């Protein structure tokens, strides 16, 4: 029930957005989103509502941490 997935915004219309994940498309509401998304953004969708725009900067920081783990030979 709480499965919320990242989906990419394809279109915006007033209070709804058309989003896509791997070819699955749906219209979602924007009543509860933290900031207005733009086309191309990734949003977390829950029960027909976009609830958050994925923070690309923060995602980069996490991925950078993973790269550091790969680079850290002492972890093997």
């Amino acid at each position, binding site marked *: 029930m709480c499965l*919320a997935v990242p989906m990419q915004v394809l279109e915006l219309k007033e209070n709804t957005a058309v989003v896509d994940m791997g070819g699955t498309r749906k219209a979602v509401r924007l009543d*509860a989103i933290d900031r207005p998304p733009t086309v191309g953004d990734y949003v977390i969708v829950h029960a027909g509502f976009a609830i958050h725009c994925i923070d690309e900067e923060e995602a980069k920081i996490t991925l950078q941490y993973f790269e550091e783990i790969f680079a850290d030979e002492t972890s093997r």
Partner: protein
Amino acid sequence: MKHLDEYRDPHLAGKLIDKIKALSHRPVRLMEVCGTHTVSIFRSGIRSLLPPSITLLSGPGCPVCVTATEEIDKFIKLGQQKDTIVATFGDLVRVPGSSSSLQKERADGADIRVVYSTFDALDIARRNPSRTVVFLAVGFETTAPTIAAAVKETKKEGIGNFYIIPAHKIIPPAMEALLAGGELAIDGFICPGHVSVIIGADAYRPVADKYHIPCVVAGFEPVDILQTIYMLLSQIEEGKAIVEIQYRRAVNFTGNEKALALLSEVFETCDAPWRGLGTIPDSGLRLRDNYRALDIETKFDLTVPRTQDHPGCSCGDILRGVKTPLDCVLYRKVCTPSNPYGPCMVSTEGTCAAYYKYHD
């Protein structure tokens, strides 16, 4: 797929497991309080990859599972009302009440419809103006703002036949109730990802400060969960008990202001019954006075007799983390996904269903 594949890399998972093993010096018990984490941990096989010193427990993180029997009985009574359509999320339909379930009621002629979103329920109300349409408002803080939006829309449009039955639950008070009970030893919390999108990680500070339990908000992919376990172990090793966020791409400390404003405009906190935990103060949501007329209990008397859960069912103890499904006398013998005795076997996010599907 972007924002998914990066967190499913088996080589990276292997590196993280090595780091966890290198850091694991003593027995620790970590509890996840999100049904989606439960499923992800089982599906990815994380339990079998961790050193034996790390025990992962599943807490009260599945909204369907924590819905009390008396609430299910109310939903069933609602389905029996004349000219009423009950709209619900699908997970609830098969949960047994004290003597029936929504599925059985539907077989007996009740008009019970599964919807994906509250706005689907609102559409049913628009299309059926002569009938009363009631949405079963279950779920945690992730779902509650979506209900609040539908309630606001109902009032704005003047839709006179749409109601809800508020049965929401709030996670942090349940975490505190688990710890205050004193029967459970937990060394760290894997905090829910999408509840935290809404409420923000600061909501767990009372748990971390008062009970000295490290809290880390986790994403849902295997690498997210492994990094979270590593972060919790690091805190435990350093003697810290702070709130950290692993799921930084989606969660901040203060939460989603817009969703929180929506929530507090429509709902106020109230005491709520939890399966296995009893009544927890300020752990539920009821409609504020401005919107109270949309609570179906202002229209119908849905009082139900107090009931006992099935005497053999251990769902309550499992939700508190004091038993696993393997300790339940019904598990696998008579209680199975096709013949569930308790909600933890019904919901796909339930601990018993996850054990049944993935546990050796």
